[in-house]
């Protein structure tokens, strides 16, 4: 088997052994859910319910408020109790709709459209938009927009991201093993909608069984290729995945995959798309990996959106040691949270718990100029220059060194022997330069 890849990157231990062999378990419906209005990139959704309203499972409770926005649905049957600020798994607070659950799980009406592949592209997009689907790999870009490229920019290739390069996470892996046909159905729907000529499914080398399964199931589809990829972080980053599969380079300075005629979707998103198009089922649940050395029984849990992280930990039997760090997402790009109060969102791929020792903060030393960050950067930027430019407020230098192009994969920081918190400096630089640009415009 030939494994493709990209230049740069790092090799953290994949730590998937904790949860990779646990089949997806469906979580009981919690007594209460908290559904943030902002689970995606773009404007927060507009609530269309008020406290006291009774809602069914799958009922629309907030509408997209702009072109780049997302519909939200109730993930349970029950009564809206309040709409207020709540902890968000992104590490901040946001407006959220709180719903108290009733015993009966009463769904809105679903359909079964067995001929879903015969639907028009317009109808498919309508169903995807109505289902409130966004990218489920982490960033949460509204899927409808990705599937509506401008007329002058046709898409010829769809890539499904089954790489899951973040250590610990196994939710995509379990989905590929347990629902491969739904994933392939989702891919076909996307390809049809975009009139794409070819579809790829990129999977990393540490998931050979998934590679084999997907290859077997697509052997009669002449336009679908399973692409085995080298085990290297960040293989699942959009630009790196596109490059590995097609050798095309997405332009920097804000270029989108569509400029090289590619659309990338996560395998989990493909399942959501399939369910939305065939059954009109809105995106109200997802698979999330709960893992870490100190988690008693690490699991892959299918949970309703809005389920509190603390309940997931409880389902895994709690922890064997005192928690030192709570990470929402993967360990390379995820957010550290102060507590377990935040809820599962459409983008929540993982919840990791570290012990005190794994959580310890490493002290920053002066840069040794060893250049490891430069070698590791998959985007060929100069991470150490960015860090020092931001530190000394040299915004021009920071921009020249590529701060705005940085996708914050963290490879640089991972290998830095001086433990410089490069991503933290990048964040400061991005915020400052964005603010300065905004001021310059007005």
């Amino acid at each position: 088997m030939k494994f493709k890849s990209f230049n740069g990157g790092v090799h953290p231990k994949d730590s998937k052994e904790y949860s990779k062999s646990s089949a997806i378990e469906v979580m009981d419906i919690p007594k209460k859910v908290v559904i943030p209005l902002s689970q995606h990139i773009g404007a927060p959704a507009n609530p269309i319910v008020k406290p006291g309203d009774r809602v069914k499972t799958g009922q629309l409770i907030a509408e997209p408020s702009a072109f780049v926005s997302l519909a939200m649905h109730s993930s349970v049957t029950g009564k809206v109790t309040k709409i207020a600020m709540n902890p968000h798994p992104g590490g901040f607070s946001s407006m959220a709709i709180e719903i108290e659950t009733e015993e009966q799980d009463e769904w809105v009406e679903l359909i079964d459209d067995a001929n879903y592949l015969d639907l028009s592209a317009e109808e498919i997009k309508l169903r995807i938009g109505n289902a409130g689907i966004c990218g489920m790999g982490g960033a949460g870009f509204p899927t409808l927009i990705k599937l509506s490229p401008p007329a002058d920019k046709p898409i010829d290739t769809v890539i499904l991201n089954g790489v899951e390069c973040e250590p610990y996470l196994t939710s995509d892996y379990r989905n590929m093993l347990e629902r491969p046909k739904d994933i392939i159905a989702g891919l076909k729907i996307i390809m049809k909608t975009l009139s794409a000529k070819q579809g790829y499914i990129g999977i990393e080398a540490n998931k050979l069984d998934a590679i084999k399964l997907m290859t077997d199931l697509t052997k009669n589809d002449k336009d679908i290729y399973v692409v085995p990829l080298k085990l290297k972080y960040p293989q699942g980053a959009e630009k790196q995945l596109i490059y590995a599969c097609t050798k095309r380079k997405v332009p920097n300075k804000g270029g989108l995959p569509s400029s090289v005629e590619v659309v990338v979707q996560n395998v989990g998103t493909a399942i959501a798309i399939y369910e939305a198009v065939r059954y009109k089922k809105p995106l109200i649940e997802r698979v999330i990996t709960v893992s870490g050395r100190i988690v008693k029984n690490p699991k892959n849990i299918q949970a309703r959106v809005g389920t509190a992280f603390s309940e997931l930990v409880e389902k895994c039997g709690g922890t064997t040691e005192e928690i030192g760090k709570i990470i929402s997402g993967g360990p390379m790009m995820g957010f550290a949270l102060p507590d377990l109060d935040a809820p599962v969102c459409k983008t929540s791929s993982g919840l990791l718990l570290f012990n005190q020792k794994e959580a310890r903060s490493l002290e920053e030393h002066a840069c040794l100029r060893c250049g490891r960050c430069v070698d590791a950067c998959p985007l060929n930027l100069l991470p150490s220059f960015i860090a020092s430019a931001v530190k000394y407020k040299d915004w021009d230098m920071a921009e020249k060194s590529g701060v705005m192009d940085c996708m914050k994969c963290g490879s640089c920081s991972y290998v830095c022997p001086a433990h410089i918190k490069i991503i933290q400096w990048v964040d400061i630089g991005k915020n400052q330069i964005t603010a300065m640009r905004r001021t310059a415009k007005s």
Partner: protein
Amino acid sequence: MKNKTIVSSSPHLHDATNVKYVMWHVVIALMPALIAGIIFFGFSALTITIYSVIAAVTTEALIQKLRKKPITVSDGSAVITGILIAFNVHANSSWWLVVVGSIFAIAIGKHAFGGLGYNIVNPALLGRAFLLASWPTRMTAGWAKTQFGELSGITIDNIPAVAKDLVSHATPLGVANMLRDPEIVTSIGADNVYSVFTHLTDFSTLNNLFWGNIGQCIGEISAFALLLGAIYLLLLNIIEWRIPAFYIGTVFVLTYFFGGIDGFMSAPITIPLFHILSGGLLLGAFFMATDMVTSPITKKGRIIFGIGAGIITVVIRLYGGYPEGVSYAILIMNLFVPLIDKFTSPKPFGEVKA
């Protein structure tokens, strides 16, 4: 009760390296060369090294104490500087020579610029340059013979009588340098010059150079020991191959073409090996040119750095007054590093014209 959890910026994983890891592994990698020095020169090699290390570490601790900064001598970087200063003098040197060299290296070469990470030239090389400028005779004469062989590595019996004196008081590179001196050519006769040159580059001399049975600086004598350490660092990914490969490669190519005593292409095929194995080239290429703080951070930059150091080394060895040019070559290239980095910054992935 709620646990106290740490909230920090991603990534939340880190590989096993840190400053100490890097520096102490370099110290370990220098040990074979030190052992070779002790084997060939006796315990004076060890005592000189210990004096040097103590001076370097004490100076660093004192300066940090005076500046009310955290004392970081345990990171191992001052230990490396101390070892390298000792490695750059011969085994007959006085103890105070390395002590002065180490104090200068740490105080001026390192801490005057702000300490580890901020220095612009390799502190140990600056220390050596200071010693060479201040006590040129002590640094270039009075070489210690090894316990087993000749200073120049040449088997003395094969040498014409008139040249024996010349060969027995100089290092291999010293001999090579003298053979280019018109006065010496006149005094011992052209035929004898050829004879000495042939012996200087024959297999038995190369063999002595490789194992270390020659008179050179303490850390430079055994190419074998230095290569052991170099392989260790390469395998641990602590040094990167580009600088040493292009440095040594450049010396190889240039000395092949210009290394003879009769002009272009007049040298025997062994002359590049002679130049690689003698003097401080291997020590410099693997342990000093690769000093991360003072070498380029880009891959292309490291190639340019290596080639530049190679050219300067060969020019000094073949056409300069000094027999050896490694330390000046690296020091000069150190100064070019910011410029090299500026012009070799990698093309961002998917670069588009703005």
